[in-house]
């Protein structure tokens, strides 16, 4: 479901390995990222470059992860989103809640 690409001081870079982020994998995704937050106590940068479609169940999981991170004073940053996926987040105002960057290089400047 997710792959750890980089374990850097202060943050982890992970990649979502599925192209359809939906109800079938939302719960697994949430528990894996929550476990990473609890174990590493580091900010998390999530790379979406493989994701072509995201449904509301997965968005719910993403927001639950954000709330979990905020309670620990950690950040969740989203990068590499395809246009359709990014457009959906804009339409429902999740861009006001998440920090979203085009790629990892832009994201680490903000961290």
């Amino acid at each position, binding site marked *: 479901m997710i792959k750890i690409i980089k374990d850097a001081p202060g943050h982890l870079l992970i990649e979502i390995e599925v192209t359809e982020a939906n109800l*079938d994998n939302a719960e697994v995704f949430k528990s894996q990222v929550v476990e990473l937050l609890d174990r590493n106590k580091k900010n998390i940068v999530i790379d979406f470059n493989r994701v072509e*479609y995201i449904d*509301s169940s997965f968005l719910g999981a993403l*927001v639950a992860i954000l709330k979990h991170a905020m309670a620990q004073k950690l950040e969740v940053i989203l990068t590499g989103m395809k246009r359709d996926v990014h457009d959906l987040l804009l339409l429902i105002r*999740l861009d006001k*809640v998440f920090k979203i960057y085009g790629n990892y290089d832009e994201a680490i400047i903000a961290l």
Partner: protein
Amino acid sequence: MTTFTKKILLVDDNQLFLKMLSYAFKNAGFDCITAESGADALNILKTEIPDAVLSDYEMPWMNGLEFREELLADAALKDIPFIFLTHISDNELMVKGLGLQAVDYVLKDTPVNVIVSKLNNIIYTVQKQQELSKNELKKAAEALNVRSIPQSVPHVKGFAIDFWHQPYQDIPGGDFIDFIQADERRTFIVLGDIMGKKWMAWFFTFSFLSYVRAAVRFGALSGDYSVASILRKVNEVICLDDVLKDILSSLSLILIDNETQQISYSGAGDLPLLYYREKTRQLKQVASDGLLLGLFPDGRYTEQNIHLEDNDRLFIFTDGMTDFSAGNGKKSDYNQFMNNLEPFLTHNQSFKALEQEYFASSTSEKVDDCSIIQIYKVSRYD
């Protein structure tokens, strides 16, 4: 009822047997995934959920019983029907396996076509059982008169209101609609979408609906008809409700005042509404700025007035209308939905015609619950 291709996961360290079995299952119309070890299978199960697992018992590193134990420990996997494949007719092994809630045993020397029929029967029985339970649940909900979708539309002077709703795979889901007539003047229109699908989401629609109804009624009692103020109250309560922790919902809340003929609107993480002006024959987005209900105690809700001229229309809808299955996967495309809708409106199609010719005609491509409400400003001369 719609039929779906059954997906099966075959686990066996014997590649030849795996190939033979996989060939037979594919020929019988199954979607077949194979794994050569329990560890491989667990990896596959992280991204794919089959209708049944057929696993060898004797495998190196992790045998079938150990693999079964791993599945049982995972809430997302424990209920997938599990069948053991074994060379040996060993009573002790069977007892152990049944203790691990294996549905059945199949001896490996059973003819392949018999194995396929047996699996087919098991999946059919499990699905039938689930369907029966769902029907029971539906009947109970109907008996208690709990509905997340109304049966009729309200009559509001100066306007015609219509809606269309299609649950995903015919199972009630997270979309909810309500029409609340607060008094003789004011009608509230509610459209929400719990983030999630099917039964789990459906269950939570009632909690959200109860809070919205209560906030509207309490508001009316104190003379507060502000839609933004109602959303603020609903959101605050939801953020405090432990049962709804991690449950989020979008919500569009509309108030029609039949005396002033004004519409006011406030939204929580909902898709922009579409406003069709008869004069310009164009659709325009009407966006709100509030966050999803349950996200933060300060949801930043504001409201705006929407003025409809005669024959103008306002559409409020959930993301099921803009998500669809394309040739090589699923897609979410708000603009495409809007561009496809516009020509129907310029040809002055009635809502009934829109339902039949646009919304319902593409239901096979839908990937989520679909709900759309139309508010039509009736011409003074009609």
